[in-house]
């Protein structure tokens, strides 16, 4: 590995690796592996290469007509470490490495020789080395390839086998069952992804460097590898990391999830827009919901990520049989909110049958655009169902209503709340103008409104929250629009406006450092009692993340020092 005397790019990329770990909620140091790119592999691969070469030389068919292999049907946890025998789609390579009509799988070995990562011409690390290591046994099957005894093995061939089999499975499902042909090509897939950072350069920044696991799985669009400062590629890839004892390619549901994202594509369900009640993330949520639903549909089992997501906490595992509804379970985070959609689809599947459900929702999905909301999606789903079976269409409509996909007002009761005690452990986020653009001159609205029930005679209510937003010293530029007994509404005409009873301004709390507060009194609360609906508006470019909220009803109106708002104007 070349070493260069440079500071900024290296520091920056090592921080990037650290950030990667933070994103995945891993509270351990990353990159604490060996100080040289080790040759951790691959006597097996070398050995099987020799066998393959010999077989090719001898002129025998290397791969059996119906090659057998052993894989996990689901994942190591669900299958209790027991593999099952399957028949693979016959690879089309001469040596039997795992490339066929619809999948082209390579391992990414923790060895020297991977593509160099460079920034501004300075090399500071490398991708693991991409090699197709798996070849058939002498009998043309792949049965000798088993899960490694060490689950942290960054070079195992079993990961290739899992990927090859399950990509072919999901491709066959979409093509043969649903007639979709948009991914009819050998989709490149990379397993055991790790990155190597030069430890000597890393050391100058107080970091360990060395091999660093990639704690995620993703669909990389064409040329997306540049994101890792790696040379461009013409084709989209799916990539799966090996992180500590978690190999993401061992979880079939994770493979199916990423593949479904590729199938949905970028011209559907990729938008974020404002509707009458705030910012609407439902297209992104449905994109995630579809990816989970079809992963579950593939295995006729409603739990996603039993193995591949559990490493980051049990709350990350998604069980579609658990009801999530709008608005009670809304968070503003697409994976969490996607569970509302996927759990509704799963309930429909159970009620009216898998065939009808899948046909109907795929027909509807084809018509979706980037701004399709829950309500619009439901309308298309019901219309498609009515074409096939009006009785079952009625049942589907009832379930869509029950799960809140129809007629959902995106407001939740405001009460004392903590991110760490919430089911999904996600912040209450308000996007900034930097992401959404300059059109929101009234401020970027939150995804959800708050509804505060107020009893008759209430004098004052103090609301405090702990908010973080970069560059604001914990005093983000937020305002709070208020409306009595009905949600705050937004009009999109004439550049957009907010319709509210009043707008008040929270300020830094006097008693709690890094908190903001506002005390509502006077005309800010309804004299007769009722509900105060509130919509946070972010006037800064950066997003705001709230992780704790406190709500206190005060016996009297405070005199001063409580960021009092009376709404007299």
């Amino acid at each position, binding site marked *: 590995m070349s070493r260069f005397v440079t500071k900024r790019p290296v520091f920056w990329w090592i921080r990037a690796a650290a950030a990667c770990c933070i994103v995945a909620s891993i509270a351990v140091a990353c990159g604490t592996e060996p100080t040289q790119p080790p040759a951790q592999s691959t006597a097996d691969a070398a050995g099987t290469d020799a066998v393959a070469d010999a077989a090719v030389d001898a002129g025998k068919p290397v791969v059996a007509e119906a090659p057998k292999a052993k894989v996990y049907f689901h994942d190591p946890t669900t299958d209790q470490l027991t593999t099952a025998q399957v028949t693979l789609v016959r690879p089309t390579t001469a040596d039997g490495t795992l490339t066929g009509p619809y999948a082209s799988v390579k391992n990414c070995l923790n060895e020297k020789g991977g593509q160099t990562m460079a920034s501004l011409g300075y090399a500071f690390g490398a991708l693991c080395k991409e090699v197709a290591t798996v070849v058939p046994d002498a009998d043309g099957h792949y049965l000798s390839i088993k899960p490694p005894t060490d689950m942290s093995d960054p070079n195992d061939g079993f990961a290739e086998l899992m990927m090859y089999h399950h990509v072919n499975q999901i491709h066959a499902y979409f093509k043969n069952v649903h*007639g979709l042909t948009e991914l009819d090509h050998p989709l490149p897939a990379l397993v055991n992804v790790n990155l190597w950072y030069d430890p000597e350069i890393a050391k100058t920044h107080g970091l360990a460097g060395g091999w660093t696991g990639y704690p995620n799985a993703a669909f990389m669009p064409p040329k997306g590898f540049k*994101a890792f400062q790696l040379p461009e590629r013409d084709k989209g890839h799916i990539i799966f990391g090996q992180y500590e004892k978690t190999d993401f390619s061992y979880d079939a549901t994770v493979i199916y999830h990423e593949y479904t994202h590729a199938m949905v594509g970028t011209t559907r369900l990729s938008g974020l827009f404002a509707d009458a009640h705030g910012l609407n993330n439902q297209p992104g949520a449905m994109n995630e919901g579809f990816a989970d639903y079809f992963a579950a549909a593939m295995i006729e089992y409603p739990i996603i990520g039993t193995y591949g997501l559990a490493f980051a906490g049990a709350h990350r595992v998604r069980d579609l049989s658990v009801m999530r509804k709008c608005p009670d379970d809304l968070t503003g985070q697409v994976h969490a909110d996607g569970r509302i959609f996927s759990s509704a689809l799963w309930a429909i599947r159970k009620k009216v049958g898998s065939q009808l459900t899948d046909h109907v929702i795929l*027909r509807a999905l084809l018509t979706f655009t980037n701004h399709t909301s829950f309500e619009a999606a439901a309308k298309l789903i019901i219309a498609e169902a009515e074409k096939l079976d009006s009785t079952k269409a009625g049942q589907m409509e009832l379930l869509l209503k029950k799960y809140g996909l129809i007629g959902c007002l995106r407001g939740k009761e405001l009460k004392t709340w903590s991110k760490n005690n919430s089911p999904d452990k996600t912040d209450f986020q308000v996007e900034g103008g930097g992401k959404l653009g300059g059109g929101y001159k*009234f401020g970027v609205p939150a995804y959800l409104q708050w509804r505060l029930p107020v009893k008759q005679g209430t004098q004052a209510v103090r609301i405090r929250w702990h908010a973080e937003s970069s560059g604001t010293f914990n005093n983000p530029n937020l305002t709070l629009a208020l409306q009595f007994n009905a949600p705050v509404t937004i009009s999109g005409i004439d550049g957009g406006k907010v319709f509210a009873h009043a707008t008040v301004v929270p300020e830094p709390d006097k008693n709690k450092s890094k908190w903001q507060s506002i005390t509502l009194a006077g005309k800010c609360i309804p004299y007769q009692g009722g509900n105060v609906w509130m919509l946070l508006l972010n006037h800064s470019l950066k997003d705001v993340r709230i992780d704790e909220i406190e709500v206190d009803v005060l016996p009297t109106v405070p005199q001063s020092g409580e960021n009092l708002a009376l709404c007299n104007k």
Partner: protein
Amino acid sequence: MNRLIATTAALLGLALPSPAIASAPRTAKKVTVSRAPASARQQAQQTLAELQKRTPRTSAHWSISQPGPHVVAGMRVLTKGKTYEARARHFLRAHEALLGGVKQRDLRLDRVSVAHGRRVARFAQSHAGTPVLGRFVAVSMTPDGVVLHLSSDAVPVNGVKRGALSSQLAVRKALLAAGGTGWAVKHVTRVIDAQFGGAVDGFAVDLIGGLKPQLLRVVVASSDGRIVRMGDRMKR
């Protein structure tokens, strides 16, 4: 002063530049709702009513930010044409009001998808030959070309003026806005960005790299080089 500018801009129906967001007023005030421009929406409603007369099960879903309906579902409209694109265009020409002021000739075919007895022609919106970012119209048909559903993000973008900013300068502005080092330019596209509050002519600059690996899209206005918006497009 900023408040005055904001109010004036609102009255003129203009989109405000991002800096106005950062310096938004922090005082309590009352705001009011405005009414939709009648003509485009009324025409769309009239066309929808005609469709509903023919097929009573036809229903619609409306959005606050587009004059036409976002979804019209459950129609049954016969079309003519040798291809699915031609049949979809035949429908759109005959019911152009459903696009809320957008002309069907401003739609470019993106693709025709096939599944379970449906043929869906997907069109990308453009304006005077410039693509309108992320805005699509999908027409769902039976295999014999009967139109069943329409789904549309299309918004009228009249009055958008092309600025003098070059694509090279737009890239420089985008890199500056992205911050840090290590960004690679994937591609630059001339676009119209029709987001909430108005449409802007500019460049979509796609960057790859960043502290947390990202596929960053930065939209730069061609009139004054301001950053219209910036966001990560990577799916995780």
